[in-house]
């Protein structure tokens, strides 16, 4: 109980004093996770929608695989990305290992199946409503996907927020590919792991509270900006 109280005090102190290290790693956490989120959403929204509306051989297998990939162990993803980006790996020439870019790549791989899967479920229901109308209107296939994405944007925001939640709280993969280097790749989660390892539970908890606040804040901001709770909009 004392640790939690001290953690709250530490979190408050870090925020009130705008601790330079805290601001730096918070901004880096946000930059990495939001960039990964945007990239993953650009891939996952059309993919989930495509799988909802198109029939093709192995479609069910593809959906099952996508759902299974939601549970990808981050440490395994981290290891694979590490091997791909290491000097001896196929993409080693780009020198991305231990950079925020490597962390973004790992997070994209982790959250894309999650966002695509949630998006697919939502788009499947919407497609059931729209199917006859859009076919009747002779809407071309690419416009069907765009229509569903536009009209199903509330559900897609939920999918994206689920992805953001997983990305911002992820530690295993980014620890491996980022290396938790001070002033370079340290983010909130890796900093928490480090402080816990050092036995500074108060600071680790403080960072944890900041992380929770950040996740909640971004969720509220996205809801506010997208107007999902306003009565006259969808």
């Amino acid at each position, binding site marked *: 109980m004392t640790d939690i109280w001290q953690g709250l005090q530490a979190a408050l102190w870090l925020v009130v004093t705008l601790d330079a290290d805290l601001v730096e790693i918070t901004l880096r956490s946000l930059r990495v996770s939001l960039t990964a989120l945007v990239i993953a959403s650009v891939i996952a929204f059309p993919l989930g929608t495509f799988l909802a509306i198109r029939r093709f051989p192995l479609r069910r297998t593809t959906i099952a695989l996508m759902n299974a990939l939601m549970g990808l162990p981050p440490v395994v993803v981290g290891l694979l990305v590490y091997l791909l980006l290491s000097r001896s790996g196929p993409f080693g020439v780009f020198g991305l290992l231990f950079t925020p870019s490597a962390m973004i790549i790992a997070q994209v791989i982790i959250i894309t199946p999650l966002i695509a899967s949630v998006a697919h479920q939502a788009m499947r229901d919407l497609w059931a409503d729209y199917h006859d109308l859009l*076919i009747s209107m002779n809407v071309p296939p690419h416009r069907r996907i765009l229509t569903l994405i536009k*009209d199903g944007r509330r559900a897609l925001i939920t999918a994206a927020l689920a992805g953001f939640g997983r990305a911002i709280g992820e530690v295993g993969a980014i620890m491996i590919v980022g290396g938790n280097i001070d002033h370079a790749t340290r983010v909130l989660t890796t900093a928490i792991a480090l402080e816990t390892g050092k036995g500074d539970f108060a600071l680790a908890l403080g960072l944890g509270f900041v992380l929770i606040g950040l996740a909640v804040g971004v969720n509220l901001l996205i809801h506010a900006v997208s107007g999902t709770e306003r009565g006259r909009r969808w």
Partner: protein
Amino acid sequence: MVSPILPLRASGLEVRRRGRPLLGPLDLAITEPGITIVVGPNGGGKTTLLKALHGLERRSAGTVTWGLPTSEAAARQAFVFQTPIMLRRTVRENLTYPLKIARLPGPERGKRVADWADRAGLVPLLNRPATRLSGGERQKLALARALIAAPDFLFLDEPCTNLDGRATREIEELLQAEAARGTAVLMATHDIGQARRLADRVLFLHRGRILEEGPAAEVLSAPTTAALASFVKGDIVE
């Protein structure tokens, strides 16, 4: 002028689901514009017939041909469903949608939306979410959205079911005006009064087969089958 989309001809048309016959085999030809009404008791295959002709229902056998190549004909048809399907957008955006699909320029879109909103009595509702409209308003919007791109052939599947008298009359007036413009209309209904008010031609569909067809005045005043005679009298037809 007869639209180039006509004639519509169905030959040996048959729809089966899991081996069970739902429709046909039947032959059908619509060669003139005007309002053709498919009447018959519920479960007789009216919706299946309309959807099979429009391409929404997979045919088990037979052919459907139009006066135009299939892809061109498809772009000149519209369908109004019994339960209106509303895009989760405003009334204005629902009306604009088919015009965007048809790639009409922006200013022309605006003019047509204003015109059809006025004709369908939807002007005060233009900025309201379509899913919040009443049943009658939704059906008027569905009809206006179907007609806004000026189709040559309009399918309607019992568009006035569950509507009050006023909404029914407004929809019928829109339909008659559109038919007068030269649009061919094929509408399903089990409301014999509506068939009398609107139909130029009537098809009587029972158990998936066309039992009678011809000019509305002749078919409805002198039925030649017991089933249609009972239906016209208002008896239960099984």
